[in-house]
């Protein structure tokens, strides 16, 4: 049996809002071929297992149902490595400025 995540844990749920075939008429073809998906975070209302239906209370106090997809989801957006195409711009413009770029 899958491990149950404790009530009150900060989680993310996932739900299909509009399945393929129900998307708006004005949507381009390639977007119509995929569903409109929703992800929302909140506190788990009752113990549930990953991949199962679960209810959450959001930060706005709403109760929402969806598939439990993540436990304590990380903020993993970052900067990534330096980009060589930007790395030398500072030196280049300082060279152009010469003595004029000494600040005032």
């Amino acid at each position, binding site marked *: 049996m899958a491990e149950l995540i404790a009530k009150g844990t900060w989680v993310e749920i996932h739900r299909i809002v*509009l399945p393929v075939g129900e998307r708006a008429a004005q*949507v381009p073809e390639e977007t119509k071929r995929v569903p409109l998906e929703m992800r929302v975070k909140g506190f788990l209302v009752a113990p549930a297992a990953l991949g199962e239906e679960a209810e959450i209370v959001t930060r706005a106090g709403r109760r929402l149902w969806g598939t439990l997809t993540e436990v304590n989801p990380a903020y993993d957006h970052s900067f990534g490595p330096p980009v060589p*195409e930007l790395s030398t711009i500072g030196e280049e413009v300082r060279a152009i400025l010469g003595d004029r770029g000494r600040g005032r």
Partner: protein
Amino acid sequence: MTDESYAAIMAQREEIMRGSVGIDYGQYVTGVLAFDYERLLADTGYDVETARAVQTLTAVGDTPLVELRNVTELVRCVAKPGKGARIFVKDEAANPSGSFKDRRASLSIHEAKKRGYAGVAAATSGNYGAAVASQAAKAGLRCIVVQEAFDSQGIAQPEIAEKTRACEAYGAEVIRLSVGPELFYVFLLTLKETGYFNASLYTPYSIVGIETLGYELAVQVKERTGRFPDVVIATHAGGGNVTGTARGLRKGGAAQTGMIAASVDLSGLHMASDHDFNRKSFTTGHTGFSMPFTTWPDRADVPRNAARPLRYMDRFVTVTQGEVFYMTQVLAELEGLERGPAGNTSLAAAFAIAQELDEDRIVVVQETEYTGAGKHPLAQLNLAKRLGIEVRRGHPRDNQPGRRIVIPAHPSQIAVVDVDLDGVRRLYLQRAVESLPEGATLSDVDLEFLAADTRTSRGYVQGIIDELRRENA
């Protein structure tokens, strides 16, 4: 059980919007297309002074005006002798949530609180979400932000991921959606369910909230230099920035200052495309918003849009993605200001436009925005490379949105491309004529309205409409 299908909710659109902004737009109707724009704004009850008073309560506004002396020197290194206007920037990143959007959110949240709404909701993937969440936190209101955040592969746009984090940091619920205009359906559903106030970017409160920016910068530039700015450049997306800033400049006495709108050129990319979503490398300030909103302002999430940029812009220019990333790096390294990137669209335009003007002239870039993880040229360029977009140094004319980002090889290559405003006006008028109900005719009031909305004359409007009719005959 109530019908919550797409069709059912969209059919209730007018009713849900009316309840959620507390404005009866019907009372402003004066013709088939015309409405009393000035009265809509005046009825907010705020002028610049009272708006500033509300904003001061949450430390919004009164941001520093910074002269970019080194950038100006760099302009003069590449400009013709005697050319190279002084460039100033209004450091809007100093606002509580890090952008000028706090000004737009402040009056809406103040009104929502005053009228007893339990919470506020906003449909936005940008800085505005953080601004609404920040203001709501201070006011003790619940907040829901609806974002278009990731594509069908589950790849989040890094700048929007940062906005998710910021909104959640302020205690908001964030509804993250995959790509598509049906975001509006989810937003309406949320408003209907919660009864929250719609803190739309396009209400009169949002626009009056920006007037303080134009007003402040007029006063600050006059105090600092003894004259009003010659031109102010605003990064242009939905039109609020241009509209509110221009109105504020006039209220601050700078009636002769030219208003220039600047957008990142994203031509060729489709805004509702799942494939193109993560290939834009910009989340706002681009032509994907500015073109449709300039030619049809009333496409917004309120019945009548208070942002009507064609009324105010003297000039509309585009710059490339690579030019904006280049200037973002220059701003950091020559001025010690790590800001943007999207807000630096107007800075890239300023670098080119300052070269057209004499050295004693003044150009103001009217905003900066905070920088952070995801919200940075490195994050965008790394994602672009991962998706197979070529990133290289070269001439900006070789930049191709979604295929190749060209970082200028030399600052002398930075240029603006002028958008033909008459072409834009024509598209606006074409849309207006198409939106006429069957059998309806335009009255004098409508022609006056269309002239004001396109900043032209009745004769001009009539001429274009006659032309369009002949073409369609």
